[in-house]
């Protein structure tokens, strides 16, 4: 049996969901027998590959760069999982939405800067007007709320997908968990 081609992606989030993923601890070794990790902040692949079975997406869509990545991921992924509250609800990154991106940039790079105040003009992606949850941009197959979802919840999701079933998250995790 060929192994499940898994990718994990980190968009506008804090990487806490990836930390929770790593918190599966010794269960990772067991999972690794059935999984090939083809793309992730945890491995060295530079390009998002074709024909991925499952992609766990952490984080919201806050920049055009995020949006382009997400659209490419969707096109190359069979089962797209919104992992954690930022992906599901836009969560903390969306706290800038009532104020707008200019105010957020000014806060970070002008008002609180003690040396060289001024927003960077290159190498970082431009913020979009609003941070959005994944499903406002592309169709999502599985929603896993939680900030972060527990290691047990992520383990359940992967086990179900490995068994060829769609995980049912009802009652297993909640917003802000």
């Amino acid at each position, binding site marked *: 049996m060929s192994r499940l081609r898994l990718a994990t992606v980190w968009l506008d989030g804090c990487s806490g969901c990836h930390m929770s993923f790593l918190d599966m601890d010794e269960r990772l070794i067991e999972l690794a027998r059935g999984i090939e990790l083809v793309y992730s902040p945890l491995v060295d692949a530079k390009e998002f590959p074709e024909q991925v079975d499952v992609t766990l997406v952490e984080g919201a869509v806050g920049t055009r760069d995020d949006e382009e990545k997400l659209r490419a991921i969707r096109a190359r992924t069979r089962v797209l999982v919104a992992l954690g509250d930022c992906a599901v609800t836009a969560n903390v990154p969306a*706290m800038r939405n009532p104020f707008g991106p200019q105010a957020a940039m000014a806060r970070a790079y002008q008002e609180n800067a003690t040396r060289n105040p001024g927003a960077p003009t290159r190498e970082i992606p431009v913020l979009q007007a609003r941070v959005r*949850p994944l499903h406002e941009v592309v169709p999502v197959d599985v929603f896993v709320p939680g900030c972060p979802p527990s290691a047990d919840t992520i383990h359940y999701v992967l086990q179900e997908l490995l068994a060829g079933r769609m995980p049912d998250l009802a009652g297993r995790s909640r917003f802000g968990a």
Partner: protein
Amino acid sequence: MNAGIKTLRIDGRDVGARGDQTILQVARENGIFIPSLCYLEGLSPVGACRLCLVEVKGAARLLPSCVTRVEEGMEVTTRSERLDRYRRMILELLFSERNHICSVCVSNGHCELQGLAEKLQLTHVHFPYRYPRLPVDASHPRFVADHNRCILCTRCVRVCDEIEGAHTWDVMGRGIEARIITDLNQPWGESESCTSCGKCVHVCPTGALSEKGRSVAEMAKRRQFLPYLTMMRTQR
């Protein structure tokens, strides 16, 4: 009140009730769960949140069980696919209307909105979020009002008026612009009618009203006092 005894069926179960009781009260007495947010035992019911809608045989529309009195021979259904769908939709609308960010909320883990979302198996919100820009009033020396978390249930308005007798809280504006206010829309700390009793904080179902100094997930509410206070006011 001599309202007589009524018998009715809730979810196929025969139950007895006093004629002055509502469907919701009778259901709860019999351990039948009906979700609600604006209803709180000890306060007058207002039928605002619509989560407690039920199906009543012979009625063309859904009825809010918190303000519908029992009738002889009534047949009530509290759970169905249609009710589940509507209830989830109501919760999704509440989440999308303001900035409920559970992970950084003082009431995370103690919130009735969050709890119902979990109980009614909500995994995401289908509506686009509105992200309104709303104030946080921290002018009171002991309490905070965060309008981002308010669902306009008016429990604070009712407890302040009916139990404390101060009527500091009220609602201004209409529809999506509605907002709870203290006195004549003054900062809470400058309110002349507020007695700083804190009842509003403890009946608030979400993190909209909280005690100062509470961090994320630290604001557990205590509202066991309410039925006793009501009893004291009405049955002395």
